[in-house]
């Protein structure tokens, strides 16, 4: 079988791969990183009270096996959201750094992606519980890092200040030992930002998606596509 294919990967396998990746890549494991002040960047000489642990979600139902599929839903319709106003501001700032506005489309922060990420980490399904810990811990870390380096909350940094932090954590193989877990957070946050953004009308248009519109015939690839693939000269 093959149902819909995300990026050429059937859903079934994509989920499988994600799970395998999470199980084998140590930096994808949840950690209490920000709860450890020395690793949060504060000087060991001025110990701070350990941050409270991320609360696990109370167990509750999801949307069940027979929801009405013809309706439009928004974050918060099936389960309550998590972000505090501060967390939301931090998340929005990071979304805007990862997917900023350009001549093709608006920024991820402008089209509701922070709400989607909130919905994602608040969902009562097992995988989401672990994403929740990583994201909430990471948001806390990045805000603390902003305060440490620039004495302001992350959401109030200039673009170049924000990028200075992100440059250190934007790719796990490039990150220092100390930043490994933050880089794991960033990878997950970027994934979720992209997931939220490219599924909006603005994001789909940006990618040049032209399906979902009835056609009289299936015409196959245009010449330009065949040429691009080297199938015709």
């Amino acid at each position, binding site marked *: 079988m093959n149902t*819909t294919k995300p990026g050429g*990967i059937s859903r079934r396998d994509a989920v499988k791969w994600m799970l395998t990746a999470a199980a084998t890549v140590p930096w994808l494991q949840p950690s209490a990183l920000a709860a450890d002040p020395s690793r949060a960047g504060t000087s060991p000489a001025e110990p701070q009270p350990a941050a409270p642990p991320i609360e696990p979600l109370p167990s509750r139902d999801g949307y069940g096996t027979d929801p009405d*599929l013809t309706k439009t839903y928004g974050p918060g319709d099936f389960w309550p959201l998590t972000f505090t106003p501060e967390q939301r501001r931090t998340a929005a700032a990071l979304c805007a750094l*990862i997917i900023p506005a350009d001549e093709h489309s608006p920024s991820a922060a402008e089209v509701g992606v922070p709400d989607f990420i909130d919905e994602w980490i608040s969902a009562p399904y097992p995988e989401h519980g672990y994403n929740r810990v990583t994201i909430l811990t990471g948001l806390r870390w990045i805000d603390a890092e902003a305060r440490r380096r620039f004495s302001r909350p992350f959401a109030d940094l200039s673009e170049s200040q924000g990028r200075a932090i992100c440059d250190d954590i934007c790719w796990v193989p490039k990150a220092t030992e100390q930043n490994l877990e933050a880089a794991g957070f960033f990878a997950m946050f970027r994934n979720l930002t992209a997931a939220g953004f490219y*599924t909006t009308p603005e994001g789909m248009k940006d990618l040049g998606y032209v*399906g979902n519109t009835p056609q009289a015939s299936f015409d196959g690839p245009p010449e330009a596509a065949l040429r691009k*693939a080297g199938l015709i000269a």
Partner: protein
Amino acid sequence: MAIVTAETLRDSYDVIVVGSGAAGGQTAYTLTMEGAKVLMLEAGRNYDPVRETPMFQENFRAPLRGTGTPDKPFGFHDATVGGGWKIAGEPYTSASAESGRQFTWYRARMLGGRTNHWARNALRNGPYDFKPYSRDGLGFDWPISYEDVAPYYDKVEMLIGVYGSNEGLENTPDSPDGVLLPAPKARVGELLAKQRVARLGVPVIPLHRAVLSQRQDFQRIPARLHPNNPRAQRILADSMQGRAACFWATPCGRGCAIRANYQSTTVHLPPALATGNLDILTDALVREVTLGSDGRADGVAYVDRHSGTERRVRARVVVLAASACESVRILLNSRSPSFPNGLANSSGLVGRYIMDTVGSSVGGQIPLLEAMPPHNEEGAGDHVYSPWWLYREQKAGKLNFPRGYHIEFASGKYMPNQYTAWALERYTGGSYGRRFKEDARRYYGSFIQFTGRGEMIPNENSFCDLDPAVKDKWGIPVLRFHWQWSEHELRQAAHMQQTFAAMIQSMGGSVIGAVHEDGRRAIAPGGYIIHEVGGARMGGDPKRSVTNSWGQTWDVKNLFVTDGALFCSNADKNPTLTIMALAWRCSDYLLEELRKGNL
């Protein structure tokens, strides 16, 4: 639809059909078109694809952008209702805790069963596939041959509408002229694969899928399917005129409101209901087949899922078509002094030799497919596939496994979803900001995945029985699965991995993730491919089979099985087209026996 309630049931029917999916739908269609009075019992709820299918809903309209969850494993908008890998209150168990010995079971609880969301790949078994034991001494031969089933493949293809082409390849049967609908053009990624993998000897040809690439010929087909039955012809012609051609825009797994692909609920049930001969009772979970004092089946006992009460209904003939393992469960739960081990189980073979398909995938990123000019690639699933091609090498002993696999392709620019720009850092070195947006545009649609679907040989260690302790929420004993792959399947899965990696390389691409040499790591768990068949196999000898070659149980003359439980082997070809062809064939025999007064 003419859905009845327990209160409006007739006193008795000619035939009770349990289940409404591919097998139940085809059985009810064939019987009612020829005038038999049929009651269909379906455990799930009523379901109307015309009204309920979210055809154009973009992913942002769904919770979590439509991404699958345990509640909806194939995504929010997927057509599965009331089902999934687990159903609350309706468990199944595993006899072993070992990781390689698990069987996972996908069910749906809805009118039409899993035909509402299946992938619609509809391949015929070939001549070899009915006589595998005779070819290599493994597994079992069927009591029937390709020639026995071929006329029914023709009929089913004409009825449901299957696109594809005739290529004249070994053990990959052609259909007669005028049976298949034209295959759609290939996508650019599919064409690139075809060009590049030719040098590996892998053929790439149009897939056969149950999708109307054009409208059906409602003037000609009904007369071919129902000669001498003008009423049936008229009803079918009406139904065919109510089906539109595919408009190349939406994912078939959500179902199709314009009835352009095959689902039992859009193709089998509407004409069957139009005959006036079909009553459908939904939310009716059959527990057991009941026996009269004469040793014949006299009906079934079922649980009304709303009230939890048990009721009975009677018929001259009972047909089990609840899907292979569900039909087995009903037989095993139908215990009586004369059948202490379950009904129709004097051979001891009920539940034995269940099979799934060998599944393994490798994905890759293909630079030649980057930054393609925008054009529509939606519609009707995969357009091409690779049939098994190494028959000669296998026969000459050059491969270390005995049976074949086919390859399904996944390539194209589908509606963006969670994974569209997921984990791109492998290629981008961790870009973010404006560069990330450029990268997302560049890589969108540049991925391909090859997925193997291979033949599993039935074995002694793969079967299901009743769990001695666990019951579902109505107190009905549940199935316990025993599972073990043999070296044949494990080696085949490892071969798939090498082949797919070579295919990706031949396209100038890079493989995503590991290429497994160890079959145990390469193979998907049992049941995962959702092609479970066997458990009540047909045969020529009552001691070595559960039914004769018409699905009639040896032990109880008026009890039939018409679903995948009948399978003696599970060819690499996806099973559903064969399930329907056999269901039609069994139903023709059942009608004949009814007419003769033998039932």
